[in-house]
């Protein structure tokens, strides 16, 4: 029982230390590219959110200042916002009818 428990603790420690690594410029660039791609999808659906653009701008500003932790976090948030706006556009294709005055 002791061995597996210690192995588990080691794995958790390693995992947490990996998470604690500072984000690199490459991480930021990958996250930003993913966010931009998601926002383009929202644009194709004619349903971008202003907050996505603002969060992308915040990511770029943080990257320009060399803070890639903040930049990567903002870029990931922007991607989530863009995906949410696309989900909204898709789900509203039918849901708008629920609101209609009949």
């Amino acid at each position, binding site marked *: 029982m002791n061995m597996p428990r210690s192995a588990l603790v080691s794995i958790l420690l390693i995992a947490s230390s990996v998470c604690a690594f500072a984000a690199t410029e490459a991480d930021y660039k990958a996250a930003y590219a993913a966010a931009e791609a998601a926002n383009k999808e929202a644009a194709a659906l*004619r*349903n971008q*959110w202003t*907050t996505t*653009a603002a969060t992308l701008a915040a990511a770029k500003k943080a990257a320009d200042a060399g803070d890639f932790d903040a930049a990567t976090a903002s870029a990931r948030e922007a991607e989530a916002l863009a995906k949410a706006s696309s989900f909204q556009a898709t789900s*509203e294709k039918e849901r*708008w009818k629920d609101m*209609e*005055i*009949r």
Partner: protein
Amino acid sequence: MKLRSAIQLASAALTLAALTFAAPATAADKIDPVADARAFKKFFTDKFPKVKLEDFVNGPYSMDEGLHRQWEEKEQFPPYEFSLDMGKEMFTKPFKNGKTYEDCFPNKGIGIRQNYPYFDEKEGKVITLELALNRCREANGEPPFSYVRDEMAALTAYMAFTSRGKPFDIKIPNDPRALEAYQRGKEYFYTRRGQLNFSCATCHVQSPGERIRAEVLAPALGIMNAMPIYRSEWSGMGTTSRRFTTCNSQIRGVPLNPQDDEYRDLEYYLSYVSNGLPISGPGARP
């Protein structure tokens, strides 16, 4: 065998039931602007039984007696008057080629606001008054005006003023594309968008008369009849394009370009369902 027969019978019954329930759904999806407009008016007159049908064009000022008194006092020295004067001067001043706006419109542009937007069967699209004005300018060698600035507001204010009291008379010609444009406008009106997840209907159907921050929300019925409007919040005039784009950004949605097809279709739908209500523009709003 008995089991198989039972399964087949059950399947047939399910199919029949599905078809039976599917039929009303198809009927409900039928595009019927006349029924829509009737239901739209009934919804608002039921919701606000004290408000006369023609008073809905006064937006928030129709919602209670106190606001109505404010509006009456405001109308004695209307804040849109400067825009009206500017619009009249612009409308009659010749372009560089000697022609004027009068040459672009039926009845020389006087008393025609109630017929806009219309569906152009040649182009297969909705033509709004703002779009028609800029096309007139371009056809006469003049640069187009911004759709959200004072010049466009002044021109449309003057044209609306010459049409005051005339009932909205928006036509949907016997052209499937016109019906589709109307339907797309309706879909846009009810579709939630922006991070706040609001549709136009969230404010102007579900909540007219309620406050959103310091503002009293206008009912959707008659909302186009008062355009363009002077808004105290803006300290100036606003066109229909300005109203649509601002609504979108207020709910944290990226606005489309003024006069994009979606906005033209939306104006077509909203104007159609207010058919019969008088033009009251230019309006003034808190």
